């Protein structure tokens, strides 16, 4: 099964490079990539636009899926994810504030600053969600309040964007709907370092995550330092989510759908397998969705979130129906 996923992954990468307003023949990709003497336009399209965008889809898709997996583990709730819990929107709000403030004073915002802002936003919203989680026992109520928090944050973000400087609106508007477009190689480098490092740490936490799947009390009995573990889990998922927000804006449903699909495909919930598989799955999901977003109505481009919602939301409905069946 893992092999199938890998093959799918490679095919999608090639398609993402290949397809678009200027179609590049698959056979030529290698030549264009490594031969300086090739067609300059095609070389630029691939090197400056498609390849970084593809890399962003891979890295951020993986990050989203992992972030969702961590939140599901934390809340012991299969439909938890950065988007439904409002963490994406909270993160987006802080990033929007920072961007508008910086742009109005004509500062350029570095990607590090963006990630930091996104992380701060994610942690603040996470704090709210945790407060709610303490008082409500029912997991469905947790999701409802998460969605509400998300709406409030989105509303404020829209408000800020509406009153922002004209020049920055277009840019900001694009970003706040979620998109992989306009990714530069510098961005790719930063997101790669942050995401891969965080994901590596998540992978190394497979063991306590596995223990935590049996519930907090049993995990503690196995020798897991619960308090520390929870703090780390929340931080890691927030970093991953923040990285996505900073570079691509909010992208819905990947965080819920991918971990679920991966577990169902691989018939296991062992973190040692699920964590790397989730990253791969998230990458595949986003590659596929971005391809559709770019090409289906070309030259018009859909927002990536619309596409991920079309494929992700049915999965979520499926999970809820199955949960109901089991009682």
């Amino acid at each position, binding site marked *: 099964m893992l092999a199938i996923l890998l093959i799918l992954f490679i095919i999608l990468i090639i398609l993402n490079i290949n397809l678009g307003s200027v179609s590049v023949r698959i056979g030529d990709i290698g030549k264009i990539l490594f031969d300086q003497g090739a067609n300059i336009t095609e070389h630029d399209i691939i090197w400056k636009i498609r390849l970084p965008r593809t890399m962003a889809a891979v890295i951020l898709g993986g990050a989203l899926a992992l972030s969702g997996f961590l939140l599901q583990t934390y809340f012991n709730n299969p439909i938890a994810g950065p988007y439904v819990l409002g963490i994406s929107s909270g993160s987006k709000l802080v990033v929007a504030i920072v961007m508008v403030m910086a742009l109005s004073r004509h500062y350029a915002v570095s990607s590090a600053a963006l990630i930091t802002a996104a992380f701060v936003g994610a942690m603040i919203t996470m704090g709210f969600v945790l407060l709610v989680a303490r008082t409500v026992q029912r997991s469905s109520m947790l999701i409802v309040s998460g969605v509400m928090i998300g709406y409030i944050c989105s509303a404020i973000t829209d408000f800020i964007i509406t009153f922002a400087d004209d020049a920055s609106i277009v840019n900001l508007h694009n970003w706040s709907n979620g998109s992989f477009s306009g990714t530069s190689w510098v961005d790719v480098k930063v997101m790669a370092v942050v995401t891969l490092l965080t994901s590596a740490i998540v992978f190394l936490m497979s063991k306590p995550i596995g223990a935590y799947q*049996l519930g907090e009390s049993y995990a503690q*009995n*196995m*020798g897991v*330092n619960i308090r520390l573990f929870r703090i780390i889990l929340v931080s890691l998922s927030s970093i991953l989510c923040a990285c996505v927000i900073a570079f691509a804006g909010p992208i819905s449903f990947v965080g819920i759908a991918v971990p679920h699909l991966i*577990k169902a495909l691989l018939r296991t919930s062992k973190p040692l397998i699920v964590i790397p598989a989730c990253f791969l799955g998230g990458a595949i999901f986003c590659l596929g969705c971005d391809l559709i977003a770019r090409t289906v109505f070309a030259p018009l481009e859909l927002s990536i979130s619309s596409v991920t919602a079309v494929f992700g939301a049915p999965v979520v409905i499926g999970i809820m129906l199955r949960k109901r069946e089991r009682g």
Partner: protein
Amino acid sequence: MEYFFRTSKLAVGYNGKPLIKDIEIRLNKGQILTLIGPNGSGKSTILKSITKYLKSIYGTVYIDNRSIADMSSKDMSYQVSVVLTERIKTELMTCEDVVATGRYPYTGLLGILSSQDKLQVRQAMEMVNAWDIRERDFTQISDGQKQRILLARAICQEPQIIVLDEPTSFLDVHYKLELLSILRAMSEERGITVIMSLHELEMAQKVSDLVMCVKGEYITHWGSPQQIFRKDLIGELYELSNGSYNPLFGSFEMERPKGEPKVFVIAGGGTGITEFRTLQKKRIPFVTGVLHENDIDYQLANDLASEVFWVKSFERIGEDIYRQALKKMESCDTVINCLQCYGEMNEKNKKLYEEAVLMGLKIVTNADVL
């Protein structure tokens, strides 16, 4: 001799408020301690505190002379493993996967099981007779099987002490007996100390080395099953006004029927038990006699009959008690005679029966017809 597990002036509770104070537990290695007491008396609170899940309010818990307050959660995981009441939700985990989580303290950074770990998992599963269901999904098995799997998980953690919070709830009697005999075997063969709470007193009486009665603010009693399972003590612990506890049967009897008895039961040698219970269910007050003190009928009659005419074990029924019984019988209108044969010791019961016939009382052989 030093105790393997002991608590000193332990006070437990929530949010800094003590619920139960002055808990003094002393256990040798391999002993089984059972906590009994009414619902909400704090049994779980005590168990949570000695496993360090709750911070104790005051006092100290020692395992092998080390205070658990000084132990890291990793140290604790080598000493104590738990079987909790909370139901666990697993996703796509086989029974073997669940048991294998018990090896957590022994595996490396990524938690990969060595062949040694796998052997331990297998041994633990075989000990609870669950090896054959190892590949089943944990969510798909029965409550009894789940409890066995969780016990196997606790065993393969190779602890010195296993703490179980009401392990027999939800189990039918077959699994209850099985679970408790596994616990007994564990304590005998592996020297594992067991601390648990139980609702079933008859089980507690049979499986425990020591029993602690938890009620309200203090531990009311502490001792061997012989010392604890007494009529008055258990009745007081559970505030029984609507029934009674019978230590010989290890079970509870319903409330004695109230009112002026109009039924006399001639019984003995266990023949009366069914009739006594039937009369109780129909709420018909009755008297019975003449019974020997060592008769099983006598035990139950004490709980259910309005009055019991009895003589000392192995002695003939004397003239005095016979006269008393006869006098009582005269005030009754019905006699249930359970006896079909009489011996030297109870020949007076035959006479009672003959008198009843002479008196023209309604005579039946079982209480169902009343």
